[in-house]
């Protein structure tokens, strides 16, 4: 025996855990624990903590095993569905992004027609001059860009197609 541990402390702890302490144990072990400071502390601490467990059981009811199991099952199912639908969600997001780009591209491509149409509605007449001028500059730069990359129109058309197909699919499956 030294000051930090005792050969008998495991035996003492087992007796406390088995609920045999102090009555139903070997008198020699009890006598040893009464004299050994290590075992004395072990008994004190173990009894205090086990009492804490006992008091918790009286004052704080726990969810049943069935409830824990059921909640775990529900969560596992939800996560399985989420995992399975992950590629579709990614595809949807990409499609929406391409769709937005397509919309922007078409607007730039057909800007003269849109402008004329808006003009016919008298929209530009109510538009503040400075904002209109800045918009014109932006559109001029953008149209230069579209001239440099003529394949843009094909890409944009494809993106718009994907967007339309995605929406159609989504609507069809939602109906089911």
């Amino acid at each position, binding site marked *: 025996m030294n000051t*930090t*541990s005792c050969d008998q402390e495991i035996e003492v*702890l*087992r007796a406390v*855990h088995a609920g045999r302490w102090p009555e139903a144990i070997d008198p020699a072990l009890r006598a040893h624990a009464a004299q050994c400071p290590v075992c004395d*502390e*072990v*008994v*004190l*601490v*173990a*009894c*205090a*903590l*086990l*009492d*804490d*467990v006992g*008091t*918790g*059981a009286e*004052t*704080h009811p*726990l*969810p049943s*095993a*069935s409830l*824990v*199991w059921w*909640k*775990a*099952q529900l*969560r*596992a*199912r*939800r996560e*399985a*569905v989420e995992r*399975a*639908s992950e590629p*579709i969600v990614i595809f*949807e997001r990409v499609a929406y992004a391409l769709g937005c780009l397509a919309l922007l591209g078409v607007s730039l491509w057909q800007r003269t027609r849109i402008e004329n149409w808006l003009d016919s509605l008298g929209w530009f007449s109510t538009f503040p001059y400075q904002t209109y001028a800045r918009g014109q500059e932006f559109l001029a730069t953008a149209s230069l860009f579209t001239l440099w990359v003529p394949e843009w129109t094909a890409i944009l058309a494809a993106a718009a197609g994907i967007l339309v197909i995605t929406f159609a699919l*989504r609507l069809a*499956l*939602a109906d*089911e």
Partner: protein
Amino acid sequence: MHELTLTAIEAAAEAETAFHMDEDRFRLFHERTARKLWGYLARIAGDPALADDLLQETYYRFLRARLAEDDEAYLRNYLFRIATNLVRDHWRQQKNQRSLVQPLRDDTESPVDDRTAERVQQQSDLDRALNRMKPREREMLWLAYAMGSNHKEIAGVLGMKAESIRLSLFRARRKLVALLGGSKARLRE
């Protein structure tokens, strides 16, 4: 859109096979571990409500784990390791490790008899003493003396070296006994 890839039945089947034990076995395991696990969580997290949430999360992660062994002691230690990590993650998220543990009981409740009054007094002594200890010390004491885990098991759960447990545990035990102070006699009875 979900129906395109996984039906509800398929998802249920996948969930069933995702757990490494069946319901009956889990029921028995839960019966043997839940009370002490909750006590451990409540003591080291310092919050009974948080312990309730973490209890469910601990069992969920335990059920989803791919475990190599089937031994009861191994499973129990694995469960407590998950619980320890969850509390530590919570602390990290909170960024301010709690130093005060809230009392586990409602103090306004009046004790029904002398025995209960005595236990309530003992528990508040223990609350106060544990409140003043470090989380690591509380973890070690709980595992060693409430769970009866050996040094190797404690080291596995807490991610420490087995050789350092003996001395750390001795110091923690000494500290708790010193903090319990006046209530020592009451506890021993």
